């Protein structure tokens, strides 16, 4: 089901990457910042796809690892560490925590798994709220980056882009590897997968660890850029929700899906209701409802059906989507 990309697809991806690399040479700082946000949610969505999309375990943990990475960078940079080293340490810490948590949590299925991961994120927030080293509820300051706005906007943009490329490439190689097939087998039927020789526990833990590394790094970049962290900002369940919804919008379980979803959602939402920032979460809510009802398998699936049946059948496809799961 996961064919290696053809030369044309690789060329397309390369062209996309080149465009992203060249983008800062052509547009204003505001536009660069917008793309940085897109890259950030693309990192979250792509990472969620490892555990939620491929393995079928609905994790609410992205916010937990995002916050963990953000606070790691904040604390270590205040102790004098280099920014890129803190990103590495944050990634390792995220992986270790995911490993330790994964062993008990991944025994759970369905809603219990969702609740446990949600509980982990909320627990981290409560802890960050109360520790002295994190600055508690008052928040924590980071060293300001030196250089003008032109310089640091690009600095953060390219850091975010680097993490995103790393996440996407990892996902590509995982899905074209034995591991990816094993994960999909777990999603389709875990008991059957175990019987055919998939070491389900090991595979699930690997997926969970992979899904925690990149949010931790993204959180680190976010922290340095924001220069100030509060527990309620970075351990926000909305980060997890956005990751899930963008994966769903694009198409769960594919490499391109989360990227398409992140791009569509952030860019369109900015275009359509950039003026109503106050109601951003309300619009997000409406999008979520529409996506769940009409695009449960994502835009990619719909676009494939449209390709084979023509645009005229779009209405029929959407209608069949909404009638698929009703009682």
């Amino acid at each position: 089901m996961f064919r290696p990309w053809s030369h044309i697809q690789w060329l397309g991806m390369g062209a996309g990457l080149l465009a992203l690399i060249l983008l800062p040479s052509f547009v204003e700082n505001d536009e660069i910042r917008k793309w940085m946000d897109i890259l950030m949610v693309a990192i979250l969505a792509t990472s969620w796809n490892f555990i939620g999309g491929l393995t079928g375990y609905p994790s609410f943990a992205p916010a937990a690892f995002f916050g963990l990475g953000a606070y790691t960078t904040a604390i270590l940079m205040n102790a004098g560490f280099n920014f890129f080293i803190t990103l590495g340490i944050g990634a390792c810490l995220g992986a270790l925590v995911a490993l330790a948590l994964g062993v008990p949590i991944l025994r759970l299925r369905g809603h219990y798994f969702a609740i446990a991961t949600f509980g982990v994120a909320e627990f981290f927030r409560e802890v960050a709220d109360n520790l002295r080293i994190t600055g508690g509820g008052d928040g924590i300051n980071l060293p300001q980056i030196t250089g003008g706005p032109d310089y640091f906007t690009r600095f953060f943009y390219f850091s975010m882009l680097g993490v995103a490329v790393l996440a996407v490439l990892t996902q590509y190689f995982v899905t074209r590897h034995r591991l990816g097939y094993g994960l999909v087998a777990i999603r389709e039927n875990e008991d059957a997968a175990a019987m055919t020789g998939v070491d389900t526990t090991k595979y699930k833990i690997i997926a969970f660890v992979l899904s925690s590394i990149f949010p931790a790094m993204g959180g680190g970049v976010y922290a340095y850029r924001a220069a100030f962290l509060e527990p309620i900002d970075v351990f926000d369940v909305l980060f997890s929700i956005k990751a899930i919804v963008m994966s769903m919008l694009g198409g769960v379980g594919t490499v391109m899906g989360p990227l398409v979803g992140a791009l569509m959602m952030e860019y369109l939402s900015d275009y359509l209701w950039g003026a109503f920032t106050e109601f951003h979460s309300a619009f997000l809510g409406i999008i979520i409802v529409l996506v769940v009802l009409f695009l449960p398998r994502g835009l990619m699936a719909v676009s494939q059906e449209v390709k084979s049946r023509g645009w005229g059948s779009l209405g029929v496809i959407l209608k069949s989507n909404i009638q698929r799961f009703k009682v």
Partner: protein
Amino acid sequence: MVYGQILINSILLGGIYACIAVGFSLVWGVMNILNILHGTFLMLGGYVTFWMFKLYGVDPFLSLPLSAVSMFFAGYAVQRGLINKIVRAPMFMSLILTFGLQLLIVRLAIYFFTGDFRSVQPSYAGFSIPFMGLSIPFVRISIFVLGVLLTSILFWFMGRTRTGRAIRATRMDLDSAQLMGVDIGRIYAITYGIGAAAAATSGSLVSVGFAISPVSDVEFLSKSFIICTIGGLGNITGALAGGLILGLAENFGALYLGPGLQNAIGYVLLILVLFIKPSGLLGRKGFE
């Protein structure tokens, strides 16, 4: 003496917690929906009571039925119009759907009600009953008694009425219930409506003893998560036990670890129970 007072406070709090979680447990147990809107219905029910008191001076305990009935119909409509469309989809679809509605409703609530914390302050708010040297706040004990009473009514309804039986039959086996002539779409909508009404009732009670704001729904929702996981799904005793355990753990934890970590204790408990016995302490097999 301090311990006695904390014990009493814990039990009173635990009763309210149980009341908060009952509707959530019902919806989860019957339809396998993790209802993110539960806290939102609770918050809206609290606001019904608050505005009735503020605008018309209606006593909070008298506006309880209004809050329950209005949220029953709201919940019925949500289930019939939206959730029923995807109820057979992989389970986290309904979770995400209710989350989307939650974002929308909470945002509107902040717009219309403002983000301020509100609390109903009837004339008898400060009374307390002396009891063997301890003091029992009058409002809290009334909330406790009412909460337990309403939970018992729900228990009776589920066990003894025709609709209650249909709900239980649907939970046991959806297809067989349908073959026996149960209108699943309607039963699901009624169940969800009852869940919403139970949430609204506890919201009204909470608005008297505590304070509510549009964003406090998440707090009550995560309490419901914890209580249902500790107690287990599928029975109302589970919700009562979970509520009491959480109430005790929070109050005694605050005493020993400091009030700052009070909320963290619940999450530790949640993860511990999931680790040791994922179906909950009193949960029955097959309801997870």
